[in-house]
């Protein structure tokens, strides 16, 4: 193995020089076709290639949940998914939540409940919560806590986040008839 430089902690993709592969996928509803490095993670594809900087890298190892996106309806940590694995997939990122310049109910409730301070973990929390509410419009506290157990927040604390998801679920049921 080459030891030229230790890029283990680099937070952007380092080109491998391997032959590119073509992937075709939907990102926030838009069809995307790209030739990509086979060693690139889905996270780096979203950030470096698609310039969708909402999805964050923190631990890079699936522990913290900051990079959570929805892949084919399921919340996944995009740092440990290869971009090539997303060929044919439908990806939703935090950028896909607001519609026509208006924040979604879930985002509004995160603000209303003070469920963020620095905001670095917030896109991950939003996408984990979105995936939950898409499958279960009326989750119990325990179900919300379980689904968010893979998302870490180091400043707000989890109670306002739990409240935000609950009130968002209530509003979505009432306002969107879910």
């Amino acid at each position: 193995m080459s030891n030229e430089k230790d890029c283990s902690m680099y937070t952007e993709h380092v080109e491998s020089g391997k032959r590119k592969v073509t992937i075709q996928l939907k990102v926030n509803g838009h069809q995307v076709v790209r030739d990509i490095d086979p060693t690139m993670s889905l996270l780096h594809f979203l950030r470096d290639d698609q310039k969708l900087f909402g999805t964050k890298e923190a631990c890079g190892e699936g522990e913290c949940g900051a990079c959570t996106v929805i892949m084919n309806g399921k919340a996944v940590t995009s740092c440990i998914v290869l971009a090539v694995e997303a060929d044919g997939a439908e990806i939703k990122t935090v950028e896909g939540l607001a519609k026509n310049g208006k924040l979604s109910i879930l985002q509004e409730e995160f603000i209303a409940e003070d469920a963020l301070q620095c905001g670095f973990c917030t896109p991950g929390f939003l996408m984990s919560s979105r995936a939950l509410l898409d499958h279960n419009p009326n989750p119990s506290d325990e179900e919300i806590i379980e689904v968010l157990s893979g998302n870490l927040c180091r400043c707000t604390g989890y109670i306002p986040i739990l409240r935000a998801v609950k009130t968002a679920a209530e509003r979505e049921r009432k306002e969107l008839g879910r």
Partner: protein
Amino acid sequence: MLSRFDYFKPHNLNEAMQYLVKDEKTFVLAGGTDLMILLRRNLIDARHILDIKSLPETQVFEFVEGAGLTIGASVVVNKIVDSELVKAKYPAFNEAAAALASFQLRNRATVVGNICNASPGADLPPALLVFDTVVNIVGLNGSRQVKLHEFFTGVKRTVLQPGELVVSITIPEPEPGEKSTYLRQARLRGHDLATVGVASRLKPDGKVALGICAVAPTPLRLFALEDQISQRGLSEETAVWAAQEIKNHIRPITDVRSSAAYRLHMASVLLKRGLLKLLGKEG
């Protein structure tokens, strides 16, 4: 990541097997929750990544009466958490699956990956061990079946030979009226590897099966202790006796998660609790 690899996603087993023997630096990708971390930390030098998720054999999730439940190598852990069939027939397996890592990781991590990774502290092996799970292995020269308790050979080591692939596991059908449970201790609720995990199963004929993780270089099936418990007959008294006896059957070490002494203690506590739970008495 220093690894420079090609990615291949075969659509039939023959293609996959040809690719697997291409190079000793070929690594199998299913959920990727371990592989991607090894790549990122530069702990492996991969030249080829073989993604097995599109092989039909790996997508199987099928219960056949008399034969049991077969789970392909692409089946993710949350499928087990959500399965009413697993909840009803293999409660210990369902509980172990629900305890594994975080929700997002369970959407990617596979049952078979948790076995093949052969971590001494993996949650699923104790539960799968008590149900006499069989590992279905395919190689270029044919297929073979290995009992799960003979599959692990050491820390991160298994009986798998180069060019062999685990396509699925089969969990034999349990008998009506069985009980089973998986109890684990971790440093915090949620996302942590087990300090100790104990699976126990009680058959209608009074026979007990025990599986345990994080107390030896491999997950263990405690055959000798099971025999002693079954001979004595499972009772509150036997549960108390077994909690004392278990220290003679395990070899825990001290690491970042726990001291060896605490592991011995918790193995004893969890075993007693598990056996009492099988008796319908919460410990």
